[in-house]
């Protein structure tokens, strides 16, 4: 059965800290790995990583895909209270080619 596992499930840090969120997957027909940020309702797209693009960076956020270890990390440096959200990892693949999501990591950034 295809699955995506995220850790930790929740995390509390203080402003200015650096955090690393983890995502591991066992998905047949892997196509890509995506990270989303969900604050209230709509998940907003952060990064997509594929075999041809295993590292992405945008401002304080960066992500790396390790195809050997079947995992990815999302790093956030100099965290701000506005980074508080649920971070979802999803893998495109499986028998149906749709997105398979992990349960998410709830990040709380305290002032």
């Amino acid at each position, binding site marked *: 059965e295809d699955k995506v596992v*995220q850790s930790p499930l929740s995390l509390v840090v203080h402003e200015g800290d650096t955090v690393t969120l983890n995502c591991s997957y066992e998905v047949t027909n892997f196509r890509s790995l*995506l990270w989303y940020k969900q604050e209230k309702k*709509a998940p907003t797209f952060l990064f*997509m990583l594929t075999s041809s693009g295993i590292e992405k960076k945008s401002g304080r956020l960066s992500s790396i895909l390790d195809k050997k270890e079947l995992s990815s990390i999302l790093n956030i440096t100099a965290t701000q209270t506005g980074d508080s959200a649920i971070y979802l990892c999803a893998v495109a693949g499986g028998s149906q080619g*749709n*997105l*398979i*999501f992990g*349960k*998410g990591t709830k990040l709380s950034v305290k002032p």
Partner: protein
Amino acid sequence: DAGVTQSPTHLIKTRGQQVTLRCSPKSGHDTVSWYQQALGQGPQFIFQYYEEEERQRGNFPDRFSGHQFPNYSSELNVNALLLGDSALYLCASSWSLGLAGKTQYFGPGTRLLVL
């Protein structure tokens, strides 16, 4: 450029009733996928519509059905509602089936509560 829109934002129903949720995709997108997100869980894939046909389906019973219109908008219908159907229902749109890494963009969701 309008993003993905969904209606209604909130809905309260009782067990056994039927519900219809609506989604308009992002401009330029032709594919709509529906997800169910229970509290504390990641979204789970329900089905995907492209060219007015259901193309892929997740592990959801036949009580969940859908439709896509010529303007690419979509409906999700759930019959014989159960308490366990209470969740956030998310619609995502993409271009050309949205598979193999094509990015899906999500709408704000419809919060359904079944009493």
